[in-house]
C-alpha cells in the first residue's frame, strides 16, 4: 500500500533531448530521507560527486515533501536542490508562497531536470504532466515581467510561476529562483544552474482540491489541530499578536544589534549605530502597507511596504531581516526606503539578497582600503543600486561581483575581505557576538548559513532554553541537535518559522498520521541526522574536509564591538565538541557512522 501524503510521482526531464520520464520515488528513500531537501539530496548524491555545477551532468531538483500543500500549518514550501556553482557543495534552497503547494497539487513529489536545452524553454506542469514550451519570448526578461507575461498566457488562477531573471541567465553565481509572490530560493546559486540549463521557468497549475490525502485521516485532523494550537497561541507566531506576525523577521534587528552581533560595514564592527532606522518596529510605523501570507499560514511574517514618493518609490512584496541587514547595516546604509527599493530590484534580477549585500560590502571595503579604483562609499544607496544593475547584467565591476563575495575578494587581492565559508557569505549574525552561529556557519553543508541550525533562538531569545551568546561551551552539541531538527522540517517541507512554536512532538504526530509510517521522536531525529550526514558524505566525496569547516580570520582574530568587544569566535573549541557529537573524524563521516545510519550497507 502506498504511503500517505506522497504523490508517488517524480518527473525526470532531460532538457538536452527534450525527453520526459515519469517514475515513482523508492519507498526506502522516502522512509530514509522523507522528501523535500532529504530526497533531493539523495538524488544529487546518486547522481555522483564528480559533477561540474555548470554541466549537462548536474541535476536541478524541485521538490515537495509529504506535508506540503496539506492542512498542516505553514506547509507551503518548495525545496530546490542541486550542486552549487557558488560553493561546489550540495545545496538546497527553499521558498514559500504557493508554488510548493501547487507543485504537490499538480501531482508531484519532485521534478528533476538534467542537461541543457538547445533554446530557452519553460516547463508547464499540470495534472501530473510536464510539458516543455518555448521560452524565447521571456528570455532576457527579469522576474516581474516574466511572471506577468506567463500569467497572461496561462491565466493567473491557481497558477504559480517560478522563474529566473537576467541574473540566472547571465550565470551570476548567486542567482535566485523567484516566484510570483517574490518568494525566493535564494542561497547557493540554484538560479544560475537553471540559467545554464536554459530553463527559464516552471509554470505550475495546481488546485487545492488535489491536496495530499493522509493515511490516517482522523488522527491527522487531531495532530494538525494540535500543531495549529501551538502556532496560533505561540508567543512569537500568534497572528497579529506574536512578534513575528506583527513585525516580521525584522523584529530581530534591534535584538541582535543590542547584543553586539550585527555584522556592520562588512563585519568591521558588530553594532550598527542606525539599526533602529531599519528595524521592524520602524518599518511597521513608517512604510508597512500589508501582511501577505503563504499557503496555510496564519502568521503572515512577510511585510509588504510602500515608498510613496521620491527616487526610491516602490511598492514591494516584502522586506525581511536578512535582506535589510545585508543591504543595510552590512553596507552602512540606514535608508529603509532605499533598501526596500534595492531588495525589490534584486528580486527582479533574481539574486540572493544576502550574497548581494556581501558582494557590495566587499567592494566597499576594497574601496576603503584602496584595493580598487572604483569609489564605492559606505551607505551610498545610489551606488548600491548601480552595482545591482551591473551585477545582474555582468557589466564592469559587476562581472567580478557576480562571481560571489569570495571570488570577488580574491580578484580584488584580499580574500579575507569576504565573510564566507566554502564560498558562500554569512547572514545577519556575527559569530563574535553569537558563538553558536560561528560553529553553525563553519560546519554548514552548504557554505555559511544561519538556517542549518539556528542557535540564535537559544542565544538571543532563550528558546527553548537560554544560553549565553558569548560562551562557547555546549554550542557544538546544541548545534548538532538543531541541524538534525531542521533537516526534518526542510524535508517535510514546512516553514522553519513553524519551529518557533511547534516541536518534534508535534512533527511526529502530523508526519505519522499523514504517511502512515510509524515512528517516534527518536526515529525522526535519527532521520534528520541521516540527511545531514548524507550531505556531509557527498561533500566529503567532493573533497571537502574539516579544513573547510572554518571562518575568515576576521572572526577568529579581530574582536567584535559593543557587548562583543574583546570577543573573537572560539571556533576550534566548538569544532572539537561538535565533531565529537557528530561522530566525525576531522569533518569526515567515518564508514562506521555511514553504516549506523543506513547510508551505506
Amino acid at each position: 500500500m502506498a504511503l500517505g501524503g506522497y504523490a508517488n510521482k517524480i518527473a525526470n526531464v532531460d532538457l538536452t533531448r527534450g525527453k520526459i520520464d515519469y517514475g515513482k520515488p523508492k519507498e526506502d528513500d522516502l522512509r530514509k530521507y522523507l522528501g523535500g531537501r532529504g530526497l533531493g539530496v539523495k538524488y544529487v548524491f546518486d547522481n555522483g560527486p564528480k559533477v561540474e555545477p555548470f554541466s549537462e551532468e548536474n541535476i536541478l531538483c524541485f521538490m515537495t515533501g509529504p506535508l506540503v500543500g496539506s492542512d498542516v500549518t505553514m506547509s507551503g514550501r518548495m525545496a530546490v536542490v542541486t550542486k552549487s556553482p557558488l560553493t561546489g557543495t550540495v545545496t538546497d534552497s527553499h521558498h514559500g508562497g504557493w508554488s510548493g503547494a501547487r507543485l504537490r497539487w499538480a501531482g508531484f513529489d519532485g521534478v528533476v531536470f538534467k542537461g541543457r536545452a538547445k533554446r530557452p524553454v519553460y516547463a508547464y506542469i499540470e495534472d501530473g504532466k510536464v510539458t516543455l514550451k518555448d521560452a524565447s519570448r521571456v528570455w532576457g526578461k527579469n522576474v516581474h515581467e516574466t511572471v506577468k507575461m506567463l500569467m497572461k498566457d496561462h491565466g493567473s488562477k491557481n497558477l504559480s510561476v517560478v522563474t529566473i531573471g537576467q541574473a540566472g541567465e547571465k550565470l551570476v553565481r548567486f542567482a535566485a529562483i523567484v516566484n510570483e509572490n517574490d518568494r525566493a530560493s535564494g542561497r547557493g546559486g540554484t538560479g544560475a544552474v537553471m540559467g545554464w540549463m536554459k530553463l527559464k521557468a516552471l509554470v505550475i497549475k495546481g488546485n487545492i482540491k488535489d491536496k495530499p490525502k493522509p493515511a490516517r485521516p482522523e488522527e491527522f485532523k487531531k495532530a494538525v489541530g494540535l500543531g495549529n494550537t501551538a502556532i496560533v497561541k505561540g508567543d512569537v507566531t500568534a497572528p497579529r499578536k506574536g512578534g513575528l506576525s506583527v513585525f516580521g523577521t525584522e523584529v530581530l534587528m534591534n535584538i541582535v544589534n543590542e547584543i553586539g552581533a550585527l555584522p556592520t560595514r562588512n563585519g568591521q564592527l558588530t553594532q550598527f549605530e542606525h539599526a533602529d532606522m531599519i528595524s521592524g518596529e520602524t518599518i511597521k510605523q513608517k512604510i508597512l502597507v500589508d501582511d501577505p501570507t503563504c499557503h496555510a499560514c496564519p502568521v503572515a511574517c512577510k511585510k509588504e511596504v510602500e515608498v510613496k514618493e521620491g527616487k526610491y518609490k516602490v511598492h514591494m512584496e516584502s522586506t525581511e531581516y536578512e535582506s535589510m541587514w545585508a543591504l543595510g547595516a552590512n553596507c552602512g546604509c540606514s535608508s529603509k526606503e532605499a533598501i526596500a527599493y534595492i531588495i525589490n530590484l534584486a528580486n527582479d534580477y533574481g539574486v540572493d539578497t544576502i550574497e548581494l549585500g556581501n558582494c557590495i560590502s566587499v567592494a566597499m571595503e576594497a574601496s576603503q582600503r584602496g584595493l580598487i579604483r572604483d569609489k564605492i562609499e559606505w551607505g551610498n544607496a545610489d551606488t548600491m543600486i548601480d552595482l545591482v544593475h551591473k551585477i545582474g547584467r555582468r557589466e564592469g565591476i559587476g562581472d567580478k561581483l557576480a562571481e560571489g563575495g569570495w571570488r570577488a575578494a580574491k580578484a580584488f587581492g584580499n580574500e579575507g575581505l569576504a565573510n564566507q565559508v566554502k564560498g558562500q557569505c554569512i547572514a545577519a549574525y556575527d559569530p563574535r557576538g553569537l558563538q553558536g552561529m560561528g560553529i553553525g556557519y563553519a560546519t554548514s553543508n552548504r557554505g555559511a548559513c544561519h538556517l542549518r541550525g539556528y542557535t540564535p533562538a537559544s542565544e538571543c531569545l532563550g528558546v527553548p532554553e537560554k544560553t549565553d551568546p558569548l560562551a562557547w561551551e555546549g554550542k557544538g552539541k546544541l548545534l548538532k541537535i538543531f541541524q538534525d531538527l531542521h533537516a526534518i522540517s526542510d524535508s517535510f517541507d514546512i516553514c522553519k518559522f513553524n519551529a518557533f512554536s511547534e516541536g518534534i512532538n508535534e512533527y511526529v504526530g502530523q508526519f505519522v498520521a499523514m504517511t502512515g509510517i510509524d515512528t517516534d521522536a527518536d526515529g525522526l531525529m535519527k532521520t534528520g541526522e541521516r540527511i545531514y550526514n548524507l550531505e556531509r558524505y557527498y561533500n566529503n566525496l567532493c573533497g571537502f574536509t574539516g579544513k573547510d569547516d572554518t571562518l575568515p580570520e576576521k572572526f577568529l582574530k579581530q574582536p567584535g564591538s559593543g557587548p562583543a568587544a574583546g570577543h573573537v569566535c572560539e571556533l576550534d573549541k566548538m569544532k572539537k565538541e561538535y565533531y565529537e557529537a557528530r561522530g566525525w573524524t576531522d569533518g569526515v563521516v567515518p564508514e562506521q557512522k555511514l553504516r549506523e545510519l543506513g547510508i551505506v550497507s
Partner: protein
Amino acid sequence: MSRGSMIVATFRGIIPFFVKLYAESLGAQVADGDMVGEGWRAKVKFRKVRVGSLELTEAEMSFDGNIDAIQEFLTKFRAKALRNAG
C-alpha cells in the same frame, strides 16, 4: 538514590498548555502550578519576559526529590520541548 537539593529548569516559548501536555505524557500529574512525578515534585511558575519587541512565556520549574528521577524527566521533557526556528 540520592535526595537532591532544588533543581531549577527554565524554558521559553512553550505555552502552559504544552508544558502540561508534555509533562502529563511523561507520566507526571499537573495541577495548579504543581507537577508530581515518581520520586519528585516541582513548582511551575509562568511569567512573561521581553526580548526587544518580543514577549515570551517563560516557564520556571523548581524540582525537589530524587536527582536521577528529575534528570530522567528533564531529559525527556527537553526532547519534547525542542524548538529551533530560523
